[in-house]
């Protein structure tokens, strides 16, 4: 059993009165979606490679990865536009291999929104309801409800080309939610919006997901977006899932260098493991520098080559050697990037390696003491970094 401090915290909260939404930790919970050894091939190209995963009801699940990693293929298989070459996909315990897209309780929000240009906003939202042959007044009520959900009542009679990009995005969301699907698939839903609008919309999406209680699966290549909205993130690469975890665990306890590097900024320090003890490991990494210690899983063994991954904001910067700190790195300031709310310092060590430290600018800029070429010391606690296998 690998040890990590946050798992301890999690098991604490499980017995606490406030229950955390974490069905993936409950062995009794039945997953809504199961991928069982799914493989998808086109000729020689393998898009999905023997992939198994469980997704639970009411999750906001993010598939995150670079383009071509297979995340869109997974989503299209859930929608029914592709069928697996091997393996099974179960939705609610039922094998969906032979269920066409129009017979699945799954709806999709397309990356291009795919709004029907010849229909008004209200008609777009009503489209799926009409296919179900519901009574007219019921359809109207539902359309009205959806329009209020996305705050577009005033635009009900406009055509898609008569509204702005952000509004189109909301129409697409309302249309895909109108049939109250068990599962909503979102393909890069915010890709076409500018940054400010994207951030607002992320919170709106989370809000709507909570209100409707629908299971959301989102495909994105934007790690910040995945971190913001998701209850769990699956980091994918080359048709495989590298790690599935909550955003904080993905960020704080990446299980591989790939994940550490893909999510956020990270310092990767390569060295030899000198000793391991109680879930920690120390590495020696450069001449004249003291050893660095971080959290390690049991497979890390003394003598092996390993990499310590530590986030820049976990590092503190000092102008004199700090006392009683375990991990200390000596170097000089190579570069300072002032970002307003924080500053990034790039430190060069004697052996030529660069390490980034991020400091929140709690003080006014003119009182900043550290400048270029200055000799500084960086330090971090021994739970700040993670020692990872190569």
């Amino acid at each position, binding site marked *: 059993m690998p040890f990590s401090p946050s798992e301890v915290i999690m098991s604490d909260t499980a017995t606490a009165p406030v229950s955390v939404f974490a069905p993936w930790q409950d062995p009794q919970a039945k997953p809504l979606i199961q991928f069982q050894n799914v493989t998808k091939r086109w000729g020689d190209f393998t898009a999905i490679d023997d992939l198994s995963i469980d997704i639970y009801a009411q999750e906001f699940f993010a598939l995150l990865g670079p383009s071509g990693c297979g995340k869109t293929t997974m989503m299209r298989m859930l929608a029914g536009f592709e069928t697996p070459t091997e393996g099974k996909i179960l939705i609610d315990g039922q094998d969906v291999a032979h269920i066409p897209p129009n017979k699945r309780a799954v709806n999709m929000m397309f990356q291009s929104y795919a709004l029907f240009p010849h229909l008004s906003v209200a008609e777009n939202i009503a489209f799926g309801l009409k296919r179900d042959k519901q009574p007219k007044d019921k359809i109207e009520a539902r359309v009205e409800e959806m329009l209020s959900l996305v705050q577009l009542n005033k635009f009900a009679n406009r*055509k898609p080309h008569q509204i702005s990009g952000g509004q189109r995005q909301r129409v697409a969301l309302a249309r895909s939610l109108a049939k109250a699907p068990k599962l909503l698939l979102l393909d890069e839903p915010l890709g076409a919006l500018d940054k400010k609008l994207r951030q607002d919309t992320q919170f709106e999406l989370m809000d709507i997901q909570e209100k409707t209680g629908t299971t959301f699966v989102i495909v994105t290549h934007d790690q910040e977006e995945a971190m913001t909205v998701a209850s769990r993130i699956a980091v994918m690469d080359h048709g495989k899932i590298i790690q599935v975890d909550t955003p904080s665990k993905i960020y704080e306890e990446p299980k591989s260098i790939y994940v550490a590097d893909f999510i956020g900024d990270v310092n990767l320090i390569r060295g030899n493991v000198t000793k391991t003890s109680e879930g920690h490991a120390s590495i020696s990494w450069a001449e004249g520098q003291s050893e660095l210690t971080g959290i390690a899983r049991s497979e890390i063994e003394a003598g092996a080559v390993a990499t310590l991954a530590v986030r820049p904001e976990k590092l503190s910067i000092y102008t004199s050697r700090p006392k009683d700190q375990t991990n200390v790195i000596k170097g000089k300031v190579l570069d300072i990037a002032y970002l307003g709310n924080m500053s990034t310092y790039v430190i060069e060590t004697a052996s030529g390696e660069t390490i980034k430290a991020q400091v929140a600018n709690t003080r006014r800029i003119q009182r900043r003491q550290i400048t270029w070429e200055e000799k500084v010391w960086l330090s971090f606690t021994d739970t700040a970094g993670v020692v990872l296998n190569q």
Partner: protein
Amino acid sequence: MRRLSWFNTASLTLGFAFLYIPMIILITYSFNAGKLVTVWSGFSTKWYGELFRNEAFLDAAWVTLKVAVMSSSIATVLGTMAAYVMVRAGRFPGRTVFSGMIYAPLVMPEVITGLSLLLLFIAIGLDRGVLTIVLAHTTFSMCFVSVVVSSRLVTFDQSLEEAALDLGCTGFEAFRLVTLPIIMPAVVSGWLLAFTLSLDDLVIASFTSGPSSTTLPIKIFSAVRLGVSPEINALSTIMIGLVTVGVIGASLTSKRSIAKRQKDEQEAIL
């Protein structure tokens, strides 16, 4: 406005003269009072009256219209289906051959098409009449429709159809409710093209028409061989008038819809 140089003025005048002088002569002489086509003897509309009393011409006009409407409608259905399959089916063995075969009638000499159809109708013992002309016109105008429609389908966002499927449509419903309304302008212009082609076709119609089913172009052609009559001038003037009204009407509608769309989009940004 920039003044045109004498060279540009001259070439413009020559070009327009070349295009329109024959038509102007034809229209002018349709209002000639005398029987002689080339000698002006006063203004009159009597040939128009004569024309509308001429049963043979009216019959031919009716046959032409029937043939044009039927053949262009069938051609539009078949051509759209062919275009849809060609664009959507992706790669399959023999795709190039198939699409080549659809477009071959575009470049086939009309005489050959007409002759081969005639031979076919004789071989299967089909009596020549309205039906055979309709079939013949459908055959050659179908490929024009399919070219027009497939050029629209190539730029059609396939996710629209997927969205329709996702929202509960069967494949056919998705086509009927989403794809067809969106590509409708292309389908309509394909129909109009087929209609016009059928309307003025002489060669293929003369191969495939029977004694009871003379189309207007055949009628005009055979009448002119016996000498140009002012009645034919009148008939041609009416046809020019109809075409002019149609073209101007179509371009005005499309211009207005473009202007409206631009206005809508500007409103959306505000």
